């Protein structure tokens, strides 16, 4: 398994991201984590200058709302995407309460087994348990997009991997391809939902569609409105951070804003199953004696 195995994919409904401009791109398979973080930090400083508006706006919000309008103005009207969304999960603080899962399921009208953010219970070397929430990893090189026969999966220029449920035919080959078990199928009638502020679309697939695949969307429809995802804003332990690689900031439920690159570097953040070459955009901060299964692939 190497990172260069997968070719850049065609994105169905959005214009492709400009690779040269995309700050955190790690297409180079040989890039070590250390170099990656260094580079991320360097770009992040530049990004932070442009994104100071976000910092100011976000710091005042207890509810964790990020005003994105300021960023849009700061970056101007260029076609360059204003954000590159990512998430940081601080495993040192996660206590396994699963409030994130419940909030997500309530907001998206999901069945109990459709855990878009699933909290796994893990055992460390001393035999003690710790908890590991797993949303969609929003891979930069998503295997699910490649295997879908009808282009129902796509990646937006803001780095979100989404499912078009009015296109999906339900082959479930994406469930096979995802190394993170992050995809859920609607095996029966979808949970009914009241009238939503948005039409049923990939950015807000509510209600779900029977016979199609669903997964975490980072609450895509809410992001332009300056709202952070339900799981992040409801985490009582402040263990989840919603981040933007472009502006180099991340914010948690208490409204604590961190400089993303510094925060990741200072805490030795890692990604889940990095050896699979998917380049996930979810960072984990591990506590003492905590580990992620980083199996060197199957074959």
């Amino acid at each position: 398994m190497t990172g260069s195995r997968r070719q850049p994919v065609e994105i169905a409904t959005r214009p492709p991201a400009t690779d040269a401009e995309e700050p955190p791109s790690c297409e180079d398979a040989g890039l070590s984590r250390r170099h990656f973080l260094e580079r991320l930090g360097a770009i992040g400083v530049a990004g932070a200058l442009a994104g100071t508006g976000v910092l100011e706006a976000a710091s005042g919000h207890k509810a964790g709302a990020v005003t994105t309008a300021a960023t849009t103005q700061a970056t101007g009207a260029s076609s360059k995407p204003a954000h590159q969304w990512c998430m940081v999960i601080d495993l040192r603080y996660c206590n396994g309460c699963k409030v994130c899962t419940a909030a997500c399921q309530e907001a998206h009208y999901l069945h109990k087994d459709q855990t878009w953010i699933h909290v796994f219970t893990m055992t460390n070397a001393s035999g003690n348990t710790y908890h590991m929430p797993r949303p969609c990893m929003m891979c930069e090189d998503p295997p699910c997009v490649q295997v879908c026969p009808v282009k129902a999966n796509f990646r937006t220029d803001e780095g979100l991997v989404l499912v078009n449920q009015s296109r999906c035919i339900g082959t479930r080959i994406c469930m096979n391809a995802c190394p993170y078990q992050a995809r859920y199928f609607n095996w029966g009638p979808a949970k009914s939902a009241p009238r939503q502020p948005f039409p049923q679309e990939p950015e807000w697939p509510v209600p779900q569609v029977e016979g199609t695949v669903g997964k975490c969307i980072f609450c895509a429809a809410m992001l332009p409105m300056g709202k952070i995802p339900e799981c992040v804003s409801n985490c009582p332990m402040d263990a989840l951070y919603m981040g933007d690689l472009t502006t180099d900031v991340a914010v948690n439920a208490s409204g604590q804003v961190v400089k993303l690159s510094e925060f990741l570097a200072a805490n030795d953040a890692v990604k889940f199953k990095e050896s699979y070459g998917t380049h996930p955009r979810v960072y984990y901060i591990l506590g003492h004696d905590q580990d992620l299964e980083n199996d060197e692939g199957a074959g």
Partner: protein
Amino acid sequence: MTREQVDTMETGTSTTMTSRTLEKSIGTAYDGVDPVPPREDIREAAMRPVLETGKWWWTAVITLGVVVLAGIVAWVMQLRDGLGSAGYNNQAFWAIYEADLVAFIGVTYGGAVVSAVLRLTKARWRAPLTRIAEATALVTLPIGMMFIVPHLGESPRIWELVWPPYWNLSSPILWDFFAVSTYLLATVVFFYLPLIPDLKITLERLSAGPDNLKTRTYKKLYTIIGGNWTGSIPQRRVLHGALGLISIMIIPMAVSVHSVLSFAFSSSSRAGYLETIFPVLFVVGALYSGVALVIVVAAAFRKGYRLERYITEKHFVRMGFILIALGAAYLYLTFTEYLVDGYSGTIGNASWVYQTILGRYWIPFWFFVVGAGLLPLVILAFRRTRNVKGVATASVIVLLAMWVKRLVIVIPPATEPLVKSPLNVASANWGTFHFTWIPITITLAATAAIPLLLLVVFKFFPILPVADMEEMAAEAEGLEEDLSTLGVMAAAGDNTSDNRKERKHANV
């Protein structure tokens, strides 16, 4: 062909034969399998299923039809209740339909082996089996393809697969779709081409019989399908060339179908699916189960239509040897796969190999090892059981065990949890596929559809490749005079001396 064998054939049952020489020559054409009965008898036997409609035929068709209908009812119920009613869940996202898809498309390979491989290797004994093998491929392929429908969560949108703007060319499922469609076309052509000369012969035979609505309908059908076949030298040369070409083409096509089918599994990072051995394993498995199905179908129709004189015990023994050769190859490939994956000791590989061989899937796994690995070998090893019944029984067991093996291929890796602690692999939450009546009924219906469609196909087309059998027999010794008396070339009305020259070129 030794003198001894020819001599033994003279004690054959044929009495209606006018030319002793011809009988000998036809006998030799089958590589000593058995003496070939006179052509009138062959023609009678080949048309027997078409002309005879016994009570048992209706009983069989109605019974099988009811099972197929039950399958359709089950599918409608699944459409109503969702794919979950078939036993699927998020931790068992692929299971029985995917195994069925592999198994039913796999059994079509019998046609490719018997007709294409044995044609290319000039194994003349194959002749009486070819029509049965090709017809089996013809009916099983659409049945196998049908499994895409219940497999899909949103089957009404299946049209998206044929809508080019939606095509994602990096998807193995799309490759499957292209490969299987091409293979279907080739299978239809491969059934049709050798049938053309037969249609002329059967047409003649029908004309000799009573003139009623049935014969008139058949005559019309044969005239339309048979085209302008006269049996002239140029036509025969074209047909020979086309058959040779399609025999060569269908082999890579068949190989591609199952290879690509295996890519749908192995184009992932999932332990147990990401196997470089998969394409080979799938192709050999398909050949194995395909040969088994041809044996079972041949045994059944041989008994049903009293074809013992044409399809003999020696055919079954030879097919049995092909069967165990493929079985041994399959067992070897499986062993290699499990050994290497088990040896690697990575978390994913170690756990799926353990769970398959010794853990939660040990029963189906060892059922496969015994049923598809050891039993056929044992049955064919002893002279006592090396007969029609023995080979047919072994083939039924192989078919069953190979279906179970497909479940063992599909289900364990699909149910393996991908997020788990490295330290407690064994206790990780494995998913479970719950077999419900819906997919079982659909699988049974698909199984019943094979004999049902074969009964219907042989109601319309001769069960033995008449022209092929006659021609090959004569061809063996190069007895053109005898060949011309066979009537195959009579319609051409050409000068016989020219025919000889032409034919020699055509047969090179």
